[in-house]
Structure formats: structure tokens, C-alpha cells
């Protein structure tokens, strides 16, 4: 044990893959791109450079998951989401390392971000069976009618994850989408996709049904255009959209009247409120006569 090189073990690199339909495919294009640390120097890994077709496949997977997930009980969704938090908690160290690399944070700050992400996820897990009571309710119409408004998921939501916060930002935009019963197609932060891709593994090892969350890495500009125009996408979260593209993406989304959440500056550690939940909810109002 005198030789230093004998003491060093050659580490096993991880092949980062997409997470689509509950599986971990490579990009159908066969392309990858280099991911470096936040300073742009050190190579961290190759990430799949997803194509338009990968985006299309992800939408198909998401659509397929909608009936089951939106039809699951709110309690069940809460249980599943909480399980995700448990899995994430168990991999804190891995994520702290990935976040530190991705965002150039100190170990302690990265660990704090991961903790915040776990807590954020737990927060949303608890919302699944409460949001309907907060935003829905009985309407006192002037007539012999039972009238009830309830929130329902919008359907398939394409999410451009924030570029500035690779894990806390990601869970902050993703959790509300699925907590409300939607299925998501997420485009990970372009330069820092590794925590997002690893998060796919967390989801897969939880009880999240296949297709409820689909995670793509690649060029945000390349992937966002087909998603914004896709006719089977119901909602579009532009949080991580490139500033010069946001307006065009919103305009493309107008063709099928998608629900669009515009980009806005956010401090990810702030109380998120309920607006990210209600962004992806429709209000359904049911009337029925009251008579014997």
C-alpha cells in the first residue's frame, strides 16, 4: 500500500439517461452533449441531447398516464408523492454532490438546497387532498339546484424547468403539476440537467406510475418549440424558457389555447403559495336539480 495510485480506485461513471414512460431510454437521436460544472471547466458527464421525437414520445407517454393518475384518489397521489420525498431523502448525499457541481455551490449550500427540495416535495405531497377544498366548493345559486365547483387537472403539462436551480427549482415546478393529477413532460435545465435526470431515478423507485413524469435533457430551445405547438399538450410552463423565446413559445401555444405560465423571477426558497397548483387546474361546475 505504498503506491498512491494503488490506493485510488477507478470510479464507475454513470450514464445519464432520459426518463420517459417509466423507462430510461437514450435519445432516439443517439446524440449526447457534454455537461460541465457551473464554471464551465470540468466535464461531469454526457447527457442525452433529446430530439423533437423524444419530446413527442414523452407526450404520448404522458397522455397515456393521464387517466390513471388523474383518476387516482387524492389520498393515493399524496401517498405516492410522499414516497418520492422518502426516496429523495435517502439519496441526499448524491444530490448534494450533483447540485454542488451543477450550480457551483458549497457543500453546505448544496445540501441545504437538497433539504429544501425534499421539504418542498413534502409540502406539495400534502396538498393533493386539500386543494379541492380550498379552491372548490358549493355555489349558492338562486334556484332549486345543487351546484358544486371542483378543480380538475388540465391534462398534459410541458414544463421548462428553471435554468438557475437544478433540483429545488425543478421540484418546485414539477411537484405542483403532478400533485394536482396532471402528467408532466419536463425539459431539464439545459446546462445543469444531471440532478433532474437523477431525479427520474428517484421517481422510478417510488410508486409514481409510468408516464406521469417524463424528463428530457437537451437544448431548451430545440425541445420547447415542438412542445409549445403540440396539439396534445394542454399546459405550458415557461419558467425556464430562454428570454428571447418566451413570447414566441406563448404565441405557438395560443394555437391550441394552452394554459401558459409565463416566466417570472422567483426566489425558490420563498413560500410558493398555491398559484403553481391552480395554474394546472380547471374548474368544473356541476349542476343538478333538487327535487323529490
Amino acid at each position: 500500500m505504498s503506491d498512491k495510485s494503488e490506493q485510488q480506485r477507478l470510479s464507475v461513471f454513470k450514464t445519464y439517461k432520459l426518463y420517459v414512460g417509466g423507462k430510461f431510454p437514450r435519445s432516439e437521436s443517439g446524440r449526447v452533449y457534454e455537461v460541465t460544472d457551473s464554471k464551465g471547466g470540468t466535464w461531469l458527464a454526457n447527457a442525452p441531447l433529446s430530439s423533437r421525437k423524444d419530446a413527442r414520445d414523452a407526450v404520448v407517454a404522458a397522455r397515456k398516464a393521464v387517466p390513471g393518475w388523474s383518476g387516482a384518489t387524492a389520498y393515493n397521489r399524496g401517498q405516492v408523492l410522499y414516497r418520492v420525498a422518502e426516496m429523495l431523502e435517502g439519496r441526499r448525499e448524491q444530490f448534494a454532490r450533483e447540485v454542488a457541481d451543477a450550480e457551483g455551490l458549497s457543500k453546505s449550500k448544496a445540501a441545504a438546497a437538497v433539504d429544501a427540495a425534499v421539504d418542498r416535495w413534502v409540502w406539495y405531497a400534502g396538498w393533493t387532498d386539500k386543494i379541492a377544498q380550498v379552491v372548490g366548493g358549493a355555489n349558492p345559486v338562486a334556484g332549486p339546484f345543487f351546484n358544486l365547483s371542483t378543480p380538475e387537472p388540465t391534462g398534459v403539462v410541458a414544463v421548462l424547468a428553471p435554468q438557475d436551480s437544478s433540483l429545488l427549482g425543478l421540484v418546485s415546478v414539477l411537484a405542483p403539476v403532478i400533485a394536482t393529477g396532471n402528467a408532466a413532460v419536463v425539459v431539464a435545465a439545459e446546462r445543469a440537467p444531471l440532478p433532474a435526470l437523477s431525479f427520474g431515478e428517484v421517481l422510478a423507485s417510488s410508486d409514481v406510475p409510468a408516464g406521469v413524469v417524463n424528463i428530457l435533457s437537451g437544448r431548451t430551445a430545440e425541445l420547447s418549440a415542438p412542445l409549445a405547438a403540440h396539439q396534445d399538450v394542454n399546459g405550458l410552463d415557461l419558467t425556464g424558457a430562454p428570454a428571447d423565446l418566451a413570447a414566441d413559445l406563448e404565441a405557438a401555444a395560443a394555437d391550441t389555447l394552452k394554459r401558459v405560465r409565463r416566466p417570472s423571477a422567483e426566489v425558490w426558497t420563498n413560500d410558493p403559495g398555491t398559484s403553481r397548483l391552480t395554474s394546472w387546474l380547471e374548474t368544473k361546475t356541476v349542476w343538478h336539480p333538487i327535487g323529490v
Partner: protein
Amino acid sequence: MANEKFAYAPAPESRAIVDLAPSYGLFIDGEFADAADGTVFKTVSPSSEEVLAEVARAGEADVDRAVKAARKAFGSWGALPGAERGKYLFRIARILQERSRELAVLETLDNGKPIRETRDVDLPLVAAHFFYYAGWADKLAYAGYGPDPRPLGVAGQVIPWNFPLLMLAWKIAPALAAGNTVVLKPAETTPLSALFFADVCRQAGLPRGVVNILPGYGDAGAALVAHPDVDKVAFTGSTQVGRAIARTVAGTRKKVTLELGGKAANIVFDDAPVDQAVEGIVNGIFFNQGHVCCAGSRLLVQESVQEEVLDALRRRMSTLRVGDPLDKNTDVGAINSAEQLARITELAEAGEAEGAQRWAPACELPTSGYWFAPTLFTGVTQAHRIAREEIFGPVLSVLTFRTPAEAVEKANNTPYGLSAGIWTEKGSRILSMASKLRAGVVWANTFNKFDPTSPFGGYKESGYGREGGRHGLEAYLDV
């Protein structure tokens, strides 16, 4: 069924209650004014083609002036205590009630819809809407949008011709309650009731510039939507225009709500209360000549009761009284415009050409004005244009289904998602269907019911945002 013995004598509502001026201006900053370029257009009564008045036609310069007036007024209106804003709205609600007969007759004249509907549906709902939102003005902190939700500023609102005053109420009441000021463009075929509403605002003492009314065409609407100093855009109308608006506001800070088209399925199961279902079908598609975005324009009837239901429906349709909208016994009035009549006619012809069977009861239509008999198409499939496109007229397409799953599949098989109807006596089936139908309003064992407390709005390409109820405030608050 013969109805010869007991023929109802004409029972016309007097139009003397409406004092129509020969011409009307734009209502900007509390004053009526000509358009900057002096352009005018004529508004006609669709039941007779009689010219009712000449109306100033707003252009881009007028839009700019109105938005400036609204912006100026916003400073003090938005800062007014909610309780004071609420009192203005209560005043407006009361004056609308007092003047409801006058406004009903006016609406019937300008729109062509039966007086029975303007009197019994439109006007009561208009007043109720203002009354409802008046009460919210000083309770916004309790609406679930934070402790001190702020208004957005100037709301640019564009409304359709099918319920001119009611759509005005849906737009203006929540906007003012939340503390916004408004510039509203009524439809070019129905500008009059909005201009009379300006007079209601005057009587209520509403501060200048809080409400501005700009009669005009699509170009004025487009200019309003695109105006850089508009903070909020609210539109009710076609999906096509809704898309264009969504594109226009893309990349801006403007908040948008859109209430667009629909192709609602009205689903009748074999255990339905048949007589009430038939009433619901008739009310669903022939109410307001079918000029209703949430009209039940696709009847999905279970195959096992198809004949029974259709026989009853034809019998009932034969008793519909089509004609003079001012006659208190008229059930179906005039089509709103020659353009709309042409569209309905074209789609009905397409229905025949595609092989559906067309039926209408024998009814004598007036010789002047725009008319279309209540019409039924049977043998319609999902592929037919009349099953997919919004006709916006008194034309019902009948399709059949065998199982609840098939009914859901067919009902949801449309880019629209505004409303749906379910008719069955089985409670658990109602709840199951209601949860599976992708539509913002589901009427079970009833149809076309509206209430200011009840949120209204669509899924998918029927638009976004809700009008009515607590939910309706969100569109006008900075939240």
C-alpha cells in the same frame, strides 16, 4: 298534434318604452363623442332589417383615448375603499332592475332574441350579476387571493352579440368590483344596450372614465387588445378570434381570460326522465336561437331509446313558436345577422350533403329579417362537420351511443370543452359521467342554467379563466 282551435293572438310588447335616438356616440371619459375619424355604422333589427340607429364606429385613435381615460380614472377608482366601489355597483344593479323592461325591449330589438328571454333570463341575470359582485368589492381580502389583492389596472373587454348586456355584466361587474377600470367593445351588430348601460352609469354617478364603451368592429377590438396600456384582456367570442388574441398578448404582462366556442354533448340515457330531457334538449339548442357558446348542439342519445326520444323531440319542436321577437309568446326569434344566417345555412347544407337526415317542423318564417327554422339532423356521425363545428344556430345534430363509455368517448372527442349535459335517473352514473366529461360546466338533468355565483368557462379550446362566483374575481386581481 294539431293546434288550430286555440290560436294565440299577437301579444306584442310595446316598444314605446325605449326612446331610441337617431344616432349614438362612443362613451369615453363620461361623455358621448363622435369617432375621431367621424366614421359611423348602422345597427339594424335582425327581425325586420329596420335601421334602429346610427352608431359611431371606434378606431385606433378612439381606443387610445378611451384607454387613456380609463388609465386616468384607475388612479382614484382603484384607490377608492371597496365599500364605496361596492355601493356604485349596487346602485347600478338597482337601476338595471328599474329599467329592466326598457333594456329588455331594446335588447330584443337590436339582437332579435325573444322578449320572453330578455325579460325572464337576460335582464334578471344582468342585475343579479352586478348585485353579486357589488358585495365582493369590500370583501376581496376574504376571497382566497391573499390579504390585500390589488386590481390590475385597465381592462380591455370585447364581448359578443349573443347576450350583449349579460356579457357586459359578466365583464364589467367583476372588473369594477376588483378596482379596475374598463374599456369595453360591444359587438358591431348589437351596440345599443351597452350604450344604454353608459346612461345607467351616468345615473349611478359613476366617476368619469371608469367605464368606457366603444362600439365598433373587429379592428377596434384588435386595437384594444393590442394597446400597450391595457393590463387585462377579457374576451368572449369565437375560438378563432380567441387564438388571435392569445397570440397578440403573448410575451406581454397582460392577463387574459377567454370564453370561446363549444360543441356540447347533451347525453340522454335510457333511464332519463324523458319529458324533462326533451325540454332540456330543446332549451339546450333552441334557447336564444342556438346562439349560445354552451349550447347542447350534439344530442347523444342511447340507441335503445332513440326513437322514443326523437319522436317526443319532434313533437315538442312542432310547438315552438318562431317569429316576432317582441311577441311575448315567441319561443325562437331572429338570427342575429345575415352573416350568421349564411354560416348556419352553409353548415346545414353541408350536413345534408354529408348524408345526415334533415328535419324541421312546419313553421312559417317572416319574409323580412333573418330567420332559420329549428332544425334536427339525425344519422349524424362524429366525422360530419355538423358534429364537429360550432354552428351557433338552431341546429341540433343527433348521434347515438350504446354504453356509458362510448358516450364519454364521443362527448370528449372534440377540441372544445365548454359544457355538457347528462340525463339519467341514476345518481352514481351522473357523478361518474360528470367526472369524466372534459367540460367546464356540466348540467345533469337540466341545461343552460346560469347564476352569478356559479363559475362558467371552458376546458381545452373553449378558453381559459372562469367568469362568475369567487373564481371570477381572479381574472381581475393581480394574483
